[in-house]
């Protein structure tokens, strides 16, 4: 964060200085004054920040200095755990880590395979396939009016002397004919 502030102040100083000179060269006095003011503000801000930092260093001289002994103690006390130990071929004492790694890796591979199978299966039931299946099933669908004959057909059969072959056929399908 502190570096960003220093960078912003530095860029403002340079840009304001540049545009101030450019504006002066173009005879644009108001713009030159404006950019000059920004330049001045950035310059004062940077100078103040530098002075404050220097004063802080004078007031607290020990803060900036690092005791090498303390530093070495800290580095020695750091946890020296060997990460990725199961990948180390020299370590033959503990093979459980390898087993766990294989188990987890195998689980990941199986999950990936299952996902792939699921994707392939979902592709087989596309709308076009469903449409063709519906077309094939149309030949074995029930008739639109249902299997039961209506009242008028029943009455027609009971009329004496009626000998309509179509009607007889229909009634036979419905289980009423003889």
């Amino acid at each position: 964060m502190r570096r960003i502030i220093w960078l912003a102040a530095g860029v403002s100083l340079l840009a304001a200085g540049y545009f101030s000179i450019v504006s002066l060269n173009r005879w644009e006095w108001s713009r030159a004054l404006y950019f000059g003011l920004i330049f001045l503000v950035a310059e004062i801000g940077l100078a103040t920040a530098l002075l404050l930092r220097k004063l802080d260093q004078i007031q607290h001289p020990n803060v900036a200095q690092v005791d090498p002994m303390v530093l070495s103690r800290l580095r020695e006390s750091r946890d020296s755990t060997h990460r990725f130990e199961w990948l180390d071929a020299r370590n033959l004492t503990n093979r459980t880590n390898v087993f766990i790694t294989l188990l987890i890796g195998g689980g990941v591979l199986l999950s990936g395979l299952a996902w792939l199978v699921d994707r392939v299966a979902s592709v087989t039931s596309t709308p076009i396939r469903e449409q063709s299946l519906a077309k094939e099933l149309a030949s074995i669908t029930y008739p639109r009016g249902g299997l039961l004959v209506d009242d008028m057909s029943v009455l027609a059969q009971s009329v004496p002397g009626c000998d309509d072959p179509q009607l007889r056929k229909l009634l036979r399908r419905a289980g009423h004919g003889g």
Partner: protein
Amino acid sequence: MNWLGRIGSLLVTLALVGGAVLMRDRTLSRHDYVDPRTAVEVVVQVETRSGERSSTLEELTEALLLSCRLEVNTDPYGDLVRLDDHHYSMTFRPALDRTDRRQFKGCLQDWTLDHFLVTVEQMNEFSVE
């Protein structure tokens, strides 16, 4: 210092001197003779935002052109001409030399009037006689 360092120092010195001469030539005000039978047409694009409601673009443009021409050696040669909603032109006589052109353009494009921005699009010089 070896010979390489000397050559480097010489090159840096030459570059600095050349840059100073170039900057002097680019920035120094130098007035040349201008034929009084010449004129210059200045075409500007104008824009205003949140300005005074009583001031029209035409008034602002004319005021700026007439005040800026006092900084250079020229006089109005005709009235302000409205080209479209945001473009105006005005002719001045005599024409401007290089320094006056730069100064006139700078004055027009500077933030002289509040809420009023001018861009000089053309400065066409021509003979009047």
